[in-house]
């Protein structure tokens, strides 16, 4: 989530307020579009998503889902956010970015938004990220490479074991290697090749 100020609520806050309106008709949408023109596309997208919900048939099959694994992962994420000193995004070099900023940064780095989000969420093993990539990321973020590396090195999630009971031993949240992230982050073949080239330098 991006930073929020009293005068300019961020996209997620505006969409949440819009979502709980009793109606999502033209009048309500027009009211929000007038109030938050900077979130026009998001509001229209939200209207469509709400419309999808209204017609969607709940046919989810949980039989193949490992409930304990789902819950453990959720707890890890929650616990990490809870125990992070100083707040969720204060020490986060990505914290100042809004949606347009993310897109712009992804474009400058020639990577997908998904790979950028995974870096932000420290879902990638920092040791596997090429130094040249970190340098480029730091330069675009306006931070030092050391500061960005410190952030990327900090654990994605730690279960303290005190707040939650679990059948699984508490551990650092699952991370993937940079190579795995390249394969699974909706990158074009050209983007993948460019990143792989950084790994062999």
């Amino acid at each position, binding site marked *: *989530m991006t930073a*929020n100020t009293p005068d300019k609520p961020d*996209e*997620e806050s505006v*969409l*949440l*307020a*819009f*979502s*709980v309106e009793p109606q999502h008709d*033209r009048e309500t949408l*027009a009211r929000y*579009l*007038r*109030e938050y023109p900077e979130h*026009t*596309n998001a509001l*229209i*997208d*939200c209207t*469509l*998503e*709400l*419309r*999808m*919900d209204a*017609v*969607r048939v*709940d*046919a*989810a*099959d*949980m039989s193949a*889902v490992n*409930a304990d694994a*789902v*819950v453990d992962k*959720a*707890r890890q*994420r*929650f616990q990490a*956010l*809870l125990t992070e000193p100083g*707040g*969720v995004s204060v020490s986060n070099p990505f914290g100042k970015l809004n*949606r347009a900023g993310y*897109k712009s940064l992804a*474009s400058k780095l020639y990577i*997908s*938004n*998904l790979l950028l*989000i*995974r870096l932000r*969420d420290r879902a990638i093993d920092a040791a596997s990220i090429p130094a040249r990539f970190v340098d480029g990321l730091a330069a675009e973020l306006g931070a030092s490479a050391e500061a960005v590396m410190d952030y990327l090195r900090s654990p994605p999630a730690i279960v303290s074991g005190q*707040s*939650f*009971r679990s059948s699984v031993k508490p551990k650092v949240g699952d991370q993937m290697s940079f190579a795995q992230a390249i394969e*699974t*982050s*909706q990158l074009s073949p050209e983007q993948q090749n460019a990143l792989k080239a950084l790994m062999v330098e």
Partner: protein
Amino acid sequence: MPEPLKKKGLDGQSYTRPPEIEAWITRLEDFDVSDRLTQFEILTKRSRDYVPSEVLIYFLRRSWASGARSEFDAIFRALALRVERSLLFTISDARMAGALAIREDISGRFFECIAKDCTGRAGLLDFFEIRFDKAFAAIRTSALRQIGPSAANTVPIGTDDGDGLEISDEVEHAASDFLSGDPSKLDDPAFRLELTAAIDTLPSDQKRVMELLRQGFQIDSKDNNVMTIARILQCDERTVRNRRDRACKVLKAVLQQEDVL
């Protein structure tokens, strides 16, 4: 008596829970904790004993505030499973590529809302106590805009709709046929489902034009006070018509294939 919500709306008034949610809370407050938790475990909305997720959020916050950690853990578990279930059908593997990673990002945003609430940093959970599914649709929308398929594919096929580009007669006729179709079809839930699902597959710019048309906005107007689609999307009315016509051509083909037209 449930504790009032703190968040205030655009009109400066505090938000309130729907009466049915207040009634659920009041009723469950009389239950033993263990009985209440057992009822929270029901995942299927079709079940008569299913408790709305808004109610789970209320008791989750209350258990955190009172230090009832084992109760908090149990409710957190029930919510995590509900969120997983919801995401499995709203962000299904069949709907979009990379669905697993997108589901993880969305659930992460929800747990971030809880974490912030627990540490007194934001009151976003109030929204989830009012209309959980709709609030969840809001964070899903925001996540999809950042890392969804349309965000990943920066130039979707078929979005070349510059102002000077003329639309072909064939596309214009297809759009006209589609839009002048039998309006009573929209009363048919099966048709609405197919139509909405088909619109969801369109490029974002066409999707938005179709949604605004469905909301009843007009494309253009000489009256500067009228909020038109061209003004909302800040583009030329010809661009809006081009997007509409292209979308209609695709929708007609898709719906004919599905045999619902």
